[in-house]
């Protein structure tokens, strides 16, 4: 048996950068921010295209915890508030966190935020509370573009597992050696008419 690694495949071709995922996350997880944030690639500001009019491109990049195989945040946490579960989800227990920010500094993806008011770190737990009830993460359910796929990445029978195996799919900063469990399908290049 191949072990389970739950994760996401995010399709940039379909992503419309709407940030429904961000709002959905905040509603569901009651974080100080939504833990999935959408950036516009190659742009100084959100929603501003790169290039020169009319030869432009705009690609959206939703960024979220990568639920790494070898999570540096887990190693960094002095109070064991971060744990990689059997199903591959990396959990940060807000209650157990002592607010030292070691994980925030250690994450190469800047995926861990800090709630200044509550004085604890927080991040995407892949809606573990929903997963445990057989539901998908809320950002997946609320994605307007149906661009976020959730599933066992090691199981090619799932959509996520199948998409992950496509040739063009990529991970962020693989050179960091953390083994991210979030994969991206790139936006299709314009083919002209």
């Amino acid at each position: 048996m191949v072990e389970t690694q739950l994760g996401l495949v995010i399709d940039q071709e379909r992503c419309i950068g709407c940030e429904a995922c961000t709002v959905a996350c905040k509603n569901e997880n009651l974080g100080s921010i939504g833990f999935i944030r959408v950036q516009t690639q190659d742009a100084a500001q959100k929603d501003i295209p790169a290039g020169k009019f009319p030869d432009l491109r705009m690609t959206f990049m939703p960024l979220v915890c990568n639920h790494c195989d070898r999570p540096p945040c887990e190693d960094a946490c002095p109070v064991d508030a971060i744990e990689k579960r059997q199903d591959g989800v990396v959990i940060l227990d807000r209650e157990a966190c002592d607010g030292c920010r070691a994980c925030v500094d250690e994450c190469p993806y800047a995926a861990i935020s800090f709630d200044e008011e509550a004085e604890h770190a927080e991040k995407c737990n892949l809606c573990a509370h929903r997963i445990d009830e057989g539901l998908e993460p809320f950002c997946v359910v609320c994605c307007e573009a149906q661009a976020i796929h959730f599933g066992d990445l090691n199981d090619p029978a799932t959509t996520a597992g199948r998409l992950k195996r496509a040739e063009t799919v990529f991970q962020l900063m693989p050179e960091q050696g953390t083994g991210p469990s979030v994969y991206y399908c790139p936006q299709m290049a314009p083919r002209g008419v």
Partner: protein
Amino acid sequence: MTSEATTKLIRTVCPAHCGIDACGILAHVKDGRVVKVEPAEFPDPKYRRICLRGLSSLDITYHKDRLRYPMKRTGKRGEGKFERIAWDEALDTIAEKFKAIAAEHGWPSIGWVLGGPGAGTTKFGAYLRLASLTQSTRVSAWGYGDAGLPCGSRVIFGTQFPYALLFGGLLAGKAKPDMVVVWGANPGESQPLNLMRPIMDAKANGARLAVIDPRFTVTASKADAYLGVRPGTDSALALGLMHVIFQREMHDAPFIIRHSTGPYLVRSDTGKYLRGKDLGLDEEQAYVVWDTVGDRPAQCRAEGVAPAIGGTYTVNGIACKTAFELLKELCDTYTPQKTSEITGVAPDLIVNLAARIGSSRETTFVTHMGFTRTYHGDVSLRALGTVATVTGNVMARFKGGYLPAVLNWKPFLKAVPDKPSYSRMGILQLYDAIISGNPYPVKAVWFSFINFLNQCAHSNKIEKEVFANLDFIVDTELFMTPTARYADILLPVCSYLEFSDLVPHPYPYVQYQQKAMEPLYESRSDVNIAAGLAERLGFAEYFSGGEDGFVDLLLDSKDPSVEGITREQLMQGAMPVTAIPEMDQAFDIPFSTPSGKIEIYSEGLVEDGQALPFQLDPLESPVPGKKTRYPLAFIQGHSRFRTHSMFANVDALLELNPEPIVEINPRDAKERGICDGDQVVVYNDRARTKLKAAVSEGVSPGVVNIMQGWWIDQFAEGSVNHLTHDVINPVQEKVYEPNMHMNDVAVEIEKAE
């Protein structure tokens, strides 16, 4: 879990004014409080959706600024000073005031200014019923930017909306286009939002996508080809595309002959269609074609006649050309080079797009109201429709709007059969009715579902002349909007979670917006408010069933689309409409144009110089060869963070999109010494609007964009609609209703002091 046990799930609908989208919502209710909303299931999972606005439902319902009780104005209009009153006092005051004004000026002097009701039906219907029973004035809000499209659609297709004809197949999941052209719409962020999924599905299945828009939108970012057309030049682009299509003989001649007026002969002397009487035929009004079999004129649609699509003929001494010939001659002059000079789109892009449309098996045109919010936007819509027609890409039998018929207000209007109903007035015509009493005086207005001052053209004029000439203003609102500040009586309404309604969307479903919680504070539903006033005006019996009574009125209306569907069924989930019109070009088209065909040539507009979809100069937008007082074309995109002015006060969305910005191209910014993030003033003769600049290649040089919907108080000075004008296009007034031309405005920008 015990907490789960006490949570009730109510299936309802977010009816925000996304019109055709209307996402199904599952509300989680705990101790009478909605604690969560999520997208509800649909029989087809493609329809299960929500957006960042729908996800903000609770931010609206539980917003700290909600109006809590009825109020009467105590300060000056606009000052925002109000005093709490009881519902009885509020409704008594309104009834007395209405009766007094009606006694002096007649009931038509009371105007019901009903904006976009969103996807709801009964809340709108209730006020229509009241307007109808009192024979007062219903002020149609189509002219708020949305009338240009129906004006054009009525002329060419004889139908209010061309949507179903152009993209109904894609919406219904029946079309398999190999080419999609999105023209003047941004479904990635705004209407028709629920087209974005099928568009991307079509693209994944190999279809090419072209997007035509002056802004490089989210939708444009998905395109295989982006055409950054200059505002107000869409007709030229259409003519240029047809130039290539005709030159390469890529047009669909059998479709044109069968379904359009293309083969009909047009008299060169009068510009009118040649008729049977000109030939001495029995059928005097019959249209005439040139029969290629007998090489002679013949009555159209007569047996054995094979009409010529083009050509010049002399019939009974009358020189004639076919309508198609006239169109072709017009397009002859629109070479790619000339078209490029007018539109700003590169010539090879025009040629390639035309060739792609001409050679595709099936092209779906997705459009909305962006480019029809220009002075001649109705003509542009006809131009687009003509491209679709000459390439055979109009769905024939799928008549009407998006949906079969539920948006049918007749059941509300027939409360007393045989009694005259309301008078109808366009919202842009309302200005003059109030200011000058033309065509008759309007002295009191009732605003519902509308933030009139904020969203309608020429806000300064509204404030200083329109409001100033009104004796009485009522507003039903959730919040103290810029408009609400001017109300004499201000009534708190429910958010959608607090009342029930019937929602005939998204196609092909009907949904029940089921009340999920009791109204907060003293808020009431619009149906309830209308009923309260009706009682005081002597019409209580027509409002006795409450919201559900009106829902049943529609369900029991014998309309074939909802026949047999019950409220009980709808409480469980969305129901597919029971009658779905066919879509098949093999059948003849029952268009409601004078000819019964697609009118690529409109004889009714000969005197107006608009028989064909000519490129006519915009009113203000600068185009090459035209001197304008201000150099920049100002347009208003529609943002995903708001639906018109709704959601502009939601903190969760303001975190992501904190303030109004004007987008300006780096070239224009540099010329004016403007840097990204600078405070600037956008101005013209009407106003100065102060806000932050974003220097962006996302708008063409010569074009600036401010997303509409920000409230006036969110600007340092002025607002979007302080810059717009209220000029009436008389052709639109004649055809249907005059439109506000929000995207046909010229401005200049300078760095703020």
